[in-house]
């Protein structure tokens, strides 16, 4: 699925960029690489970035909670996606961690362990 608008215009992607700037105190110099990886993952799961985040959240008695099911689904999908990428294991892991970073900086707590 092609995205409906440029990836940088999605709210979740803007939130990711903003959180990365705040976390590291500098402008990341690899935006293009990051957004390319996220774009490819979006195609893989056939979802838009904001939809991915929304599916990791559930509303319970008007409280936003992390959806265990949604998080597990995307955790597994990231692992599946990075494994089928071309390149060395290290590069696959880097791409997978880029997508994990997108989820984490949108408040979706995720620990997938070492990807080495």
């Amino acid at each position, binding site marked *: 699925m092609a995205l409906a608008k440029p990836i940088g215009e999605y709210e979740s992607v803007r939130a990711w960029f903003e959180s990365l700037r705040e976390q*590291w105190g500098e402008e990341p110099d690899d935006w293009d690489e990051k957004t390319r990886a996220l774009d490819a993952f979006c195609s893989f799961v056939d979802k838009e970035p904001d939809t991915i985040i929304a599916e990791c959240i559930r509303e319970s008695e008007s409280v936003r909670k992390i959806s265990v099911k949604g998080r597990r689904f995307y955790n597994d999908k990231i692992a599946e996606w990075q494994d089928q990428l071309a390149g060395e294991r290290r590069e696959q892991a880097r791409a997978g*961690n880029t997508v994990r970073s997108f989820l984490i900086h949108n408040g979706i*707590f*995720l*620990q*997938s362990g*070492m990807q080495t």
Partner: protein
Amino acid sequence: MEFKQVVGRRRSIRFFEPDKPVEREKIQTILEAARLSSCAVNAQWLRAIVVERDKLDRQTLDTLKTPVSATNLELAPVHIYFYGDRGVVPRTKGSTLKELVDVGALAPAHGWSHKFVDEFVFPQILEPSSRSPEMASIGIAIDCGVAMNQALLTAVDEGLGGCFSAFNPGIAKQAFDVPDDWLPLYVLLIGYPAESWEAGGQRPRPPFEELYFEGKYGAPFKRDEKVIETLKKADMIQAPAPLPGRKEEVRELARRFGLPE
């Protein structure tokens, strides 16, 4: 290390050297320290199961993880799973208190006798409270926490890093043959730190005066600047986080271990 320095240098270490083994004598020293801790009724509720991470099969390690402890469990070469044995008081029936009378720790000077333990303390206090899961769990958790902290500080004194983490108690029960009446607490993860010992500096704490009072609530216990200076010299009070370069350190560690940034 001096005691104050041990207290000052302790950090919750979350990046371990995953392949650097911990010497068996250091693990024993940590457990010896836990055994010597203060404990109400001298009950000694604390139990521990030491597990080398690399002796766990992959599926067990993966299922022991909780969402917040997955990376920690994977990086730490040694896991010490702590439990409180809820069966101690029903089994010992006050005998641990009477031992304290026998060795002179509890004396008639303070009103203690075997008869007092047998006729009042055990039947009227210990036995009923051991039947209340809530009351028993609170007492056990407090005393086990004291012992576990003694273990943690000893790990620091031995040059190790440590961090208490959650674990999946159902999986641990199966994997380690844990008795039914053991209360799962935390796992103490230990190993050699992959991060610098400063680990970014002493963690933020609320102001002293907001925590501790003198005479009554609302009257802060006043800090003496001279004491603070003495504790700084003794390395107990150290530079607060974040130390310069911490972000770079965390980023390097994340890249080294293949973790997200």
